C-alpha cells in the first residue's frame, strides 16, 4: 500500500472527524448557552437540574457517555441499533458533553459582567432581551474566547474517541491501517493531520480575538 493510499484513507476519516467537530460546535454552543441560563435561573428546581446535568457530564468519561448514548436505546428500550445510528450517537454524546463545559464558560462570563452595565441599560429603557443581546452578550463573547478556544482544541482531539463505537473517523482509520500494515506511518500521518487541524483552529480563534480587540 502506497503512502498516497494511506493518506487518501486518512483524509476520508478526517472528513468524518471534521463533521463531528463542526456539528458538535454548531449544537453544543447554543445548547450550552441555554443550559447556563437554566443554571442561573431563579427557578430553584431548574437550577438544581442543570447543576446535576453539568456535574454528571463533566464528572464521567466522555467515552462512557458515548456508550450510554449508543447502547442505551437497546438496553433500556430494547430497540435494535442500526450501524447508521453510530455517527448520530457520537454527535449526540459530544453535543451533550460539550454543552456542559460551554455552559460553565458562559456562566462565568455572564456573571463577570459588571452590574453597572445592566443598570445603565435599564435606566435607558432597554428591555431585558435587548440588554442581553446588545449590551451583555457581545462583551461576554470577548471575555470567554480564551476558554472557548481551549475547549475547541480539546474537541479536535476528542473526536478520536468516536473510534470507541467504531465510527470511521481519522483515528479509527489510522488504527486499522497501522494494524494491517504493521507500521507506525499511519499514526504519524494522523498525528500530523490532528496537529494541522488544531493549528488552523488556533489561528482562526486568534483572528476572532483580534477582531474583538477594538475595545477594552
Amino acid at each position: 500500500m502506497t503512502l498516497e493510499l494511506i493518506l487518501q484513507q486518512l483524509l476520508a476519516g478526517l472528513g468524518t472527524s471534521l463533521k463531528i467537530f463542526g456539528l458538535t460546535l454548531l449544537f453544543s454552543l447554543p445548547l450550552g448557552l441555554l443550559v447556563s441560563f437554566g443554571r442561573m435561573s431563579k427557578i430553584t428546581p431548574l437550577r438544581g437540574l442543570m447543576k446535576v446535568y453539568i456535574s454528571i457530564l463533566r464528572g464521567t468519561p466522555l467515552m462512557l457517555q458515548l456508550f450510554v448514548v449508543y447502547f442505551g436505546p437497546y438496553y433500556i428500550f430494547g430497540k435494535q441499533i442500526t450501524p447508521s445510528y453510530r455517527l448520530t450517537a457520537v454527535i449526540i454524546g459530544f453535543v451533550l458533553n460539550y454543552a456542559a463545559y460551554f455552559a460553565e464558560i458562559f456562566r462565568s462570563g455572564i456573571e463577570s459582567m459588571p452590574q453597572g452595565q445592566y443598570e445603565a441599560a435599564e435606566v435607558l429603557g432597554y428591555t431585558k432581551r435587548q440588554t442581553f443581546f446588545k449590551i451583555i452578550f457581545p462583551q461576554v463573547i470577548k471575555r470567554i474566547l480564551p476558554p472557548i478556544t481551549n475547549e475547541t482544541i480539546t474537541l479536535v482531539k476528542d473526536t478520536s474517541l468516536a473510534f470507541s463505537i467504531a465510527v470511521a473517523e481519522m483515528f479509527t482509520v489510522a488504527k486499522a491501517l497501522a494494524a494491517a500494515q504493521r507500521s507506525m506511518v499511519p499514526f504519524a500521518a494522523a498525528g500530523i493531520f490532528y496537529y494541522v487541524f488544531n493549528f488552523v483552529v488556533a489561528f482562526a480563534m486568534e483572528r476572532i480575538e483580534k477582531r474583538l480587540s477594538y475595545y477594552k
Partner: protein
Amino acid sequence: MEVFRINNIKKTFGDNEVLKNISVAVEPGDVVSVIGPSGSGKSTLLRCATLLETMDEGELIYNGNKIAYMENGKTVYAPPGELRKARSNFGLVFQNFNLFPHFSVMRNLCDAPVSVQKREKSEVVAEARALLKKMGLEDKEDAYPYQLSGGQQQRVSIARALIMNPSILFFDEPTSALDPELTGDILKVIRDMAAEHMTMVIVTHEIEFAKNVSDRIIFMADGVIVEEGPAVDLVNNPKNERTKSFLGKFQR
C-alpha cells in the same frame, strides 16, 4: 406641575433602615443638590427614584403620573410596561460612567434613542453631533470609551443621558471617580445645563459647586433630611447642628 415627587419613602436593607420617611419634590428648572455624610442614603434615594431599587414604602410620581403607590402599607409598582415608559422621564449619570465599552462614542449616544425610543437614526445622529460639540468632544465620535479620559467619558455619559430628552436628570457623585483636575470640566458642563434650565438632582460632595449651581440643597444624614433650603443660605447659615458640623469639615 412638579416634574418629580417622591413621598414618604422608606427603604430597609436587612435590618439596616437606610431611608426613613423622606419626601422630595422637584419643580421644572429646579436644580437640587443632595449632600450628606457617607452612608446617609443618598445613592439609595437616587436608585429608588430611578427604579434601580424598589422602595418598601412610599410613592413615586413623574410629571403627574403616579408609577408607585401605597397599598396596605406597602409600595406597589405599576406594571412593567408602564414602568419602562416612565423611564423616559428621567436620566441617570453614574459615578463610574457605565458607558458601553464595545460601542463607539457615537453608538453609545445613538443606540438607545434608535432602539428604545424608535427615533429616526439620521435625526439622532445630528443631535448626537450637536451634543458632542457642546461637550467639547466633536473629534471623539468614533473613539471607544477606553480611549477617553475619565472626564471625557463622564461627558459622554451625560450626553448619553441628555439625548433621551429626559425631563429630569439625576447625578450620583458625577465627579467622584475623577482626578481633581478633571472635575472642573464636568462641573462646567453641569453649570451650563443649569443655565439652560435643565431640571437636575445632583448628589455631590462638592459643597462650593452645590452652593453655586443649585437653587436648593438637601442635607441628609442617617436616612433623614436634616435640613433643606436655598443653596446659599444653607451653606452660609446652616441652622441645624449636624449641618454645621458636616459643613465645618469642608471649610479648610
